């Protein structure tokens, strides 16, 4: 039972993470573009999803759409709801990464005859990825933890399984401890790696003034 829930949690988390990354990169790049309308769209997406609770969004997909006649499976709701919610956070991370590269580098690259694709590929993105990897990993950890909202709509994820096992056998303690351990096993290596990587980056990086992780919102 726990195994099933654990697998379901991993599946939902993996697919939602892919969706969040795709949305995040698209909207992150759009929000640094020169087009006002595009920037506005990205801004609305980010502000809406960052400033309303995930619980309400998920219940809207579950109850609201069902009443309107559109019944999605809980699996789809999980991937869609959590992916779109975290996409907004990923988009902010990507945006910070891109804007932390000084304008001068683009000018320098252009003067050397680099095309847009070339300077993005060889100059901007390699630096961006290095900078945004720790906050992105933290987002992945938060995403895994947030898959537990599925328990509220009986999504058969780890939290739901643990809760139903607890209430049927009345072994609340062992059931919650075991579920907690499984979540910990998923999140702890990621979170620790992100912290170590960030510390190493700070020690080695001469350009640290560009990006101060202290000022970044790492939570969600």
């Amino acid at each position: 039972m726990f195994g099933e829930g654990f697998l379901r949690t991993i599946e939902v988390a993996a697919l939602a993470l892919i969706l969040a990354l795709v949305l995040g990169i698209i909207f992150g790049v759009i929000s640094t573009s020169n087009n006002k309308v595009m920037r506005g769209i990205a801004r609305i997406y980010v502000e809406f999803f960052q400033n309303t609770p995930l619980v309400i969004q998920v219940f809207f997909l579950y109850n609201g759409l069902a009443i309107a006649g559109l019944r999605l499976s809980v699996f789809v709701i999980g991937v869609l709801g959590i992916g779109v919610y975290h996409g907004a956070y990923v988009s902010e991370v990507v945006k910070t990464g891109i804007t932390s590269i000084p304008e001068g580098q683009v000018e320098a690259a252009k003067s050397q005859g680099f095309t847009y694709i070339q300077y993005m590929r060889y100059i901007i993105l390699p630096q961006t990825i290095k900078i945004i990897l720790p906050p992105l990993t933290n987002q992945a950890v938060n995403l895994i933890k947030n898959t537990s909202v599925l328990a509220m709509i009986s999504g058969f994820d780890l939290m739901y399984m643990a809760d139903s096992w607890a209430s049927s056998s009345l072994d609340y303690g062992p059931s919650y401890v075991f579920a907690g351990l499984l979540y910990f096993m998923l999140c702890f290596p990621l979170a620790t790696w992100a912290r170590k990587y960030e510390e190493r980056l700070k020690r080695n990086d001469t350009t640290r003034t560009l990006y101060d992780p202290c000022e970044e919102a790492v939570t969600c």
Partner: protein
Amino acid sequence: MLDVFKNVFTPSNVEFLAKGMALTIAISVSVVIISIIFGTILALLRTYEKRFLGKLAGFYIEMFRNTPLLLWILVCCFMIPYGTIVIRGGLALTLYTSAVIAEIVRGGLNSIAEGQFEAATSQGFTLIQTLIYIVLPQCFKSIVPSLLSQVITTVKDTSFLQVVAIPEYTRSGFVVMGRYTTTPEVFMIFAVLAVGYFVICFSLSCVVRSYQKRTQIAR
């Protein structure tokens, strides 16, 4: 459209939702205040105490940061026999938020140079005085944006408490929703819920942005 509006915004519904919002705000404010105090203590221990207490603080932080909030809400509400459900739910949220805030404060503490301690000691400051008058003020100044973002997150996280039937804003919205069956009415209530949270969180995030802009110019 106007009918829907009239049906949903009856005086009793509005009063019920307002009560839910009041509880959400009350829970958020108390959770944030207690978490900042507790989280700061945890961060100080983890940064400056390398023996038993520091290890314990590290263990606490990692435990709560790597497990879902929902788990702790269920644990506190089903396994603690004392207190009302609101207090138990608030406790779960506080325990969880403290760990996150501890990591934010630790980030601020790491940016403070070691030499400041030596300077303070040479001026006759005790450790506690150094922390209160020199280290913590600088630390908090640098982490204000992250802390405020965490406040936004906490406001949103209170919606998780609806799972144990605490009558905060989300729960009251869902209760009201139970009386309606047509799509426009239900959508309207979802909109009311979303807007309620949006107003609080968006104004806070505007504060974060203006603060960041100000400090960037100051540099």
